């Protein structure tokens, strides 16, 4: 059994934290006018509800931080979701956002990340934070962004009339579990800790002073902090359950008080207890017989924004490299010839650089040759490493139809692509194959012009078989003559890793020369040259 106070951080003293005197509990402090929207009062909460105390302790903590730590409360924003607790956002005179059910935490995440100067606090109920908003809760805890989440847990959905919730004790009654709750509840501190929260505490509203001290700590915690506040729901939950059942059903204040007395009987302060052991125990009737309270976890680790900021230098470096590359791009003289719609199909398998080759053609045409070019990729149900296809349409005119209707040239690097694409080539069109990888079928089309070169083998000989696509790009450039050589060379330059540039340019030139040679020689593998 861990000793009380064993886990207290050094910040305790700094925060004016004094060991609590259990005999000296109070249920609420004075309303602090300058932090309340007086024009909105009286509030909507029932007599005997614990939310008044939750609100005043929160305000007390802020005022203490303003007075003793110089906080500018203009920079504190409160975000809440839907439900009774959610209405707190409407009563505090701070920037306050009453969002949708369960979504206060991601809203707060956006607010805080976009303006790290803000201190952002989420105040909401158990149904809102742990029910519908559970996923946001665990992910925010995981990220450890510096926000404070205060969850007022009254063990049911109060505003809609007392339905069972994610914290309703097993076998307790609620309007939708009148036969007894067959579900088990969350232990919220345990859930928060398991998700990654670096500050975790729980108090009942009976311990208003301790709660306020803990809130001071939570608010100054450099990371995600979570405080569960156990509060009576005098109208709904207490009506059904042993803590308040049998009491005058109209005496809501009385019921709330009885529940507070119950807290006094069952509360047990155990600072530093691991959250997994910080249980709310119930008996077989769903009656709460023990509530472990205290600060369970206070374990600073770098907050999310700090981690993000570490990236700035790397991002700057990348940007400068990008800028340098862009600035070094040459300009080419304008083309004056007119290029009719030209469709190119590339095909092979993943890893051969088919997509990249298609993009290089498109970029050469669009950026360096001043043409219109539209590049698309084929997607299919294949896994990575499967078939890869790329299409480029080039024209002097606007390209209305972005897909190929009938390609007039083709670069093919696999057997599968050969089977799939060659039937679609226009009669008289030009087929270029990696002759080391693709064998022509016996019934190969005679109405097209087929050229080949062992691109992969050539690239291997140059020292890197991944340059095979570049060899074929050179080959295609010479053979088809739609895009200018210098435009293609520059596009290759833009697209390959700098350390492979020389090799790739060499590969391109080999392919190009071979293309010129074969075309001049007029000796295609098949067809009329």
């Amino acid at each position: 059994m861990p000793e009380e106070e064993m886990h207290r951080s050094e910040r305790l003293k700094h925060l004016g934290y004094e060991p609590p005197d259990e005999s000296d509990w109070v249920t609420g402090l004075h309303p602090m006018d300058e932090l309340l929207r007086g024009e909105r009062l009286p509030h909507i909460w029932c007599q005997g509800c614990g939310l008044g105390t939750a609100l005043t302790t929160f305000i007390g903590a802020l005022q203490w931080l303003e007075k003793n730590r110089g906080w500018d409360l203009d920079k504190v924003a409160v975000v809440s979701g839907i439900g009774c607790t959610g209405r707190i956002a409407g009563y505090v005179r701070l920037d306050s956002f009453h969002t949708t059910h369960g979504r206060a935490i991601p809203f707060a995440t956006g607010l805080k990340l976009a303006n790290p100067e803000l201190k952002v606090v989420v105040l909401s109920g158990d149904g809102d934070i742990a029910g519908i908003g559970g996923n946001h809760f665990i992910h925010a805890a995981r990220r450890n962004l510096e926000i404070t989440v205060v969850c007022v847990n009254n063990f049911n959905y109060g505003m809609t009339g007392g339905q069972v919730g994610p914290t309703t004790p097993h076998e307790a009654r609620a309007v939708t579990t009148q036969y007894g709750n067959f579900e088990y509840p969350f232990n919220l501190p345990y859930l928060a800790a398991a998700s990654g929260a670096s500050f975790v505490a729980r108090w009942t509203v009976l311990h208003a002073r301790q709660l306020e001290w803990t809130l001071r700590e939570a608010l100054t915690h450099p990371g995600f902090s979570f405080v569960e506040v156990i509060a009576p729901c005098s109208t709904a939950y207490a009506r059904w359950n042993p803590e308040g059942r049998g009491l005058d059903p109209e005496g809501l204040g009385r019921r709330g008080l009885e529940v507070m007395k119950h807290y006094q009987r069952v509360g047990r302060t155990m600072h530093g207890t691991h959250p997994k052991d910080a249980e709310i125990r119930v008996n077989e009737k769903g009656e709460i017989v023990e509530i472990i309270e205290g600060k369970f976890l206070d374990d600073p680790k770098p907050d999310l924004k700090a981690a993000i900021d570490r990236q700035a230098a790397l991002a700057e470096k990348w940007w400068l490299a990008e800028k340098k590359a862009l600035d070094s791009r040459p300009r080419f003289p304008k083309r004056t010839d007119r290029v009719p719609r030209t469709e190119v199909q590339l095909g092979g398998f993943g890893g051969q650089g088919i997509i990249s080759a298609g993009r290089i053609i498109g970029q050469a045409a669009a950026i360096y040759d001043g043409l219109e070019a539209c590049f698309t990729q084929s997607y299919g149900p294949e896994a990575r490493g499967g078939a890869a296809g790329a299409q480029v349409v080039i024209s002097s005119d606007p390209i209305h139809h972005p897909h190929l209707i009938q390609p007039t040239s083709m670069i093919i690097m696999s057997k599968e692509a050969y089977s799939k694409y060659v039937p679609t080539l226009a009669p008289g069109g030009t087929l270029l194959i990696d002759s080391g990888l693709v064998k022509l079928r016996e019934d190969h089309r005679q109405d097209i012009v087929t050229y080949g070169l062992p691109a992969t083998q050539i690239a291997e000989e140059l020292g890197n078989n991944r340059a095979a696509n570049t060899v074929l790009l050179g080959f295609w450039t010479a053979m088809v003559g739609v895009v200018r050589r210098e435009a293609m060379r520059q596009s290759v330059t833009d697209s390959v890793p700098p350390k492979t540039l020389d090799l790739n340019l060499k590969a391109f030139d080999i392919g190009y020369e071979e293309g010129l040679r074969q075309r001049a020689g007029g000796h295609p593998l098949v067809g009329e040259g």
Partner: protein
Amino acid sequence: MSEPRGLLTGEHFLMGDYAAAEGAILAGCRFFAGYPITPATEIAERMSVRLPQVGGIYIQMEDELASMNAVLGASWAGVKAMTATSGPGFSLMMENLGLGIMLETPCVLVNVQRGGPSTGLPTLVGQQDMMQARWGSHGDYEIIALCPISPQELFDLTIRAFNLSEKYRVPVLIMTDAEVGHMTEKVVIPPPEEIEIVHRPQVRRGDVEPDHFRIFRNGRTAFGNGYISPMTAAGEGYRIHVTGLTHDERGYPVMNARAHEWNIRRLVNKIRAHRDEIIQVEGKDLEDAEVVVVSYGISARTSLWPIELARREGIRVGYLRLITAWPFPDEQIRQLAKRVRAFVVPEINMGQMIREVERCACGHALVLGANRAGGDILEPEHVLNVIRQAAGREVQWERPTGAAFESAEE
């Protein structure tokens, strides 16, 4: 060629999704919250690399519900913010798109449409969320939705989306599709000084006596005009309150029909009263048209070819492209309907925007759809034949029905 602040001024060969990201950055977007989904993921990927280069924040959230809310939160911190998704994520964003509308929060949401419903065809094109864009969140509202036809226009319209959003304090939708989003073309990024960038009318610390400030207001004020109120950001000292509940000028909840009337009419009228400023269409050859092709996005682009073919056959075809799908250009269609024989509405869906054309045509002109369920763009012959039919010519092609398909294995 490039620009010192991390802007990519110049000509680039960019995928549509990337162009949207660059448009956002030029428009001043400095916050992106997203979640992976095909075919919109590339927008997030680009933002994750680019935003840290311009001092912005990229965060991948746990789901699309969270993404939409983080964007709203960032906007209330005073930062221009965006998210991007596709069908399933768009459905998940609907609840909090409504919050954005109710809180009058500037932000931009890109939907790169794919084939639906449900998971459908993740990698393939659809234009099936067009009506959802207008009606997908509960309750009454008006929305702005833009439909680009190319990477260049994805860039341009993303900037316009931010501008409209900031001006009207409303989330703006970019309804693009897998085809435009995944297409790579030349995109010209102009120098920032050549681009008009709108910033929300924003009340800053000290501008107004905090007690006199109203976060929602009808009528002209020093900072807003018409139905649009000036905004402020968290931390500016105004201690504002906003809520998704029906509220008054201060943002305080007021639970009655009168307050609701005031709220909803303002939300609706701030768009309706500025229809002429917001609506953008591209018209061609409308003067003497007997048939007008009304379309948007990729289907508008691909219809230009069948239009050309039809003209060669002597049919006088006009072209009306909806750059803004919402608000719908009721008046333009009404006027045209009085003098044309027929409208042809090509869409990659079972007939969505055609219903609006039908509504506005008021029976004066025939309205014919050219539709396919999704997965591919419309075939030119298909659209051509519907144009022929609309012009009263003989039709030479059988429209696909899908009825023949029984099993993938047959």
